[in-house]
């Protein structure tokens, strides 16, 4: 199968630029990246369909040699429609995100952060138990105001996961 090099190069550069943009934080840039990737993929379907030929319209008993393969084009049409719908949806989502947060950046996982801080707290409380007897008044064991104090419940609660099993 002979391949149209121009199509391949254009598809590759569209995909490359698209991937670069998808790695951005801002949703609108990601969206542009997605659109570029979508176009690049559509072009690669043109490559997959083989060399260009006559329009694939056949009358009854007509000659079918030299026709373009119509199947990849049908697939590309479907893919284009889907990309359109996706674009609309992501745009709406980016707008909503901007409404809510004043920016449309892709955000971090909040719960992950909570769990990480809980884990830190766990470590701190153990360190506190280990160090209080030796270094009273050492305040490096936690955030001021929130760290464990004399209340035995605090250390207990911080180790809640271990306690309840």
């Amino acid at each position: 199968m002979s391949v149209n090099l121009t199509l391949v190069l254009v598809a590759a550069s569209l995909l490359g630029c698209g991937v670069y943009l998808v790695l951005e934080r801002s949703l609108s840039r990601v969206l542009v990246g997605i659109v570029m990737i979508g176009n690049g993929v559509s072009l690669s379907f043109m490559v997959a369909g083989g060399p260009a030929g006559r329009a694939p319209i056949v009358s009854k008993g007509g000659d079918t040699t030299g026709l373009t393969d119509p199947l990849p084009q049908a697939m590309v049409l479907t893919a284009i429609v889907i990309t359109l719908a996706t674009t609309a949806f992501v745009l709406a989502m980016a707008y909503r995100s901007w409404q809510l947060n004043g920016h449309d950046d892709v955000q971090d996982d909040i719960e992950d952060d909570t769990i990480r801080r809980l884990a830190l707290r766990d470590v701190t409380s153990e360190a506190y138990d280990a160090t209080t007897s030796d270094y009273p008044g050492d305040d490096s064991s936690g955030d001021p105001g929130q760290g464990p104090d004399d209340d035995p419940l605090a250390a207990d609660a911080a180790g809640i996961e271990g306690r309840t099993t």
Partner: protein
Amino acid sequence: MNSLVPLPVLLPILGAGASLALLHHPRIQRWLSLAVLGSVVAVAAVLLVQADRHGPQTVWIGSWPETLGIVLVADRLAALMLLVSAIVTLAVLAYSVGQGMTEDEEGAPISVYHPTFLVLVAGVANAFLAGDLFNLFVSFEMLLFASYVLLTLGGTAARVRAGTIYVLVNLLSSTLFLISLAVTYAATGTLTLAHLAQRLAELPDHVSLMIQLLLLTTFAIKAAVFPLSLWLPDSYPTAPAPVTAVFAGLLTKVGVYAILRMQTLLFPDSPLTDLLLWAALLTMIIGILGAIAQSDIKRMLSFTLVSHIGYLILGIALDSRTGTAGTTFYVVHHITIQTALFLVLGLVERRAGSTALMRIGGLARIAPVLAVLFFVPAMNLAGIPPFSGFIGKVGLFQAAQLDGSPLAWTLVGAGAATSLLTLYAVAKTWAVAFWRTPREAHEALEAIGGAAADPVPGHDTGAVQQHRGHVHTAAGTVSRNDIEEARRLGDDDEPDRDFHTLIEAGEDTRHSPLGMLLPAGALVAASVLLSVVAGPLYALGDRAAEDLHERTPYLSSVLTEEHP
């Protein structure tokens, strides 16, 4: 030729259209959706019986010549998956009707829920029936699009945040799927699965290996197999309970089904056993370690969901009839159990105001029915005999032991460890959420400093500057009040109230509506029933596995003529 085959796709699609037209008649809309899903269950049951007795049922849509048109195939595996998914979606729909989808959904376009849900069901059914890679792609897009809408229902801040990640990950996987379709078509000139099965064998090894790896990566993202699973626990828990339930039960299993179909039908000579076994191992272990660390029940369950995908991959990786039979049984078990658990969690959230472990307690005494409903599927998930989880795991371990390679034995060990750790995770949840009193929970939360449990509202990034009541972004200036207003409207979860304060204030919801309890209870009962009918079900799974590995029943029923 069997004209029943397209019905599981057609009925929900037509139902979705009709229920869109009935936007202003919510009552009729509800009954319509229930009727549609009820008839899908009936059709799927008939299809399963027919496929089991007479071999795969096929339809070439529009009677196009073979290999040109689109083919729908219902063999034993597809019909079984179809039946299970139809039953589960019916239960979830009944549950959401019982919930009214209004109480925690202020201002949400409720009327959109039913049509979208039906499209999701149609997409799932189409994915199981597709006998064509492109049709599989289209059904993935159908179910994904419905899931985008369901996940961001109401457009609250938390859901938009989770939805962003979900949508982007799935967009990328769809793109990857398209690329693999282009490659496959360029290499073989067809996308019909049965035709591909013949032509792929003629390709040079390296080309078919590349196609296989591309498809595998695509489906592994959908199925949440370890290195590609990180999006799942982040995005599922924020959705409304019935939505999370149906996502957790079905969407990942569609990916697993696609992997199973592809490995057995398209690439029987290249099982990639080692690669898949390693993926299964890492998925199990890392997933369950994540589950243990979680402080929210929904997230804990999302992590166990990822972890138990590892068992399914284990059965596929072994590339043997026993392994495939084990996976088939385990898929059925896992769809039921995971959906049931999330539905029960929806009830827990309603009763206790939260699913965060730090804020709830005492449910075993306060809501004994909920406690039982949670306990039974939780033990089933952990694989306690005599539940179906135990039977499924034993089946998979037997298959691994028959394989006998050191790695397979390692997987047996890892599977047993994962099972124990699952027990640890659910036992921890049980002890904290159901046994201690709400007062203890409250005091513990107070002591730890309420701030620790509060989510951080939106991370500030360099691009955003706050100044004199306005927030300056790259896009322009917004009044700070507007943002606060939007955030207040969008915050559906009041972080500073735990179960104890709710009870003290007398603001807890005392009664769980029967409309929600019954479907959840029915699914829990179905999951128990699975162990009662485990014998016949396992035998069916075994016959399905035999078909899959022989390939001829599928191939000869789809392609009746010789194709070059």
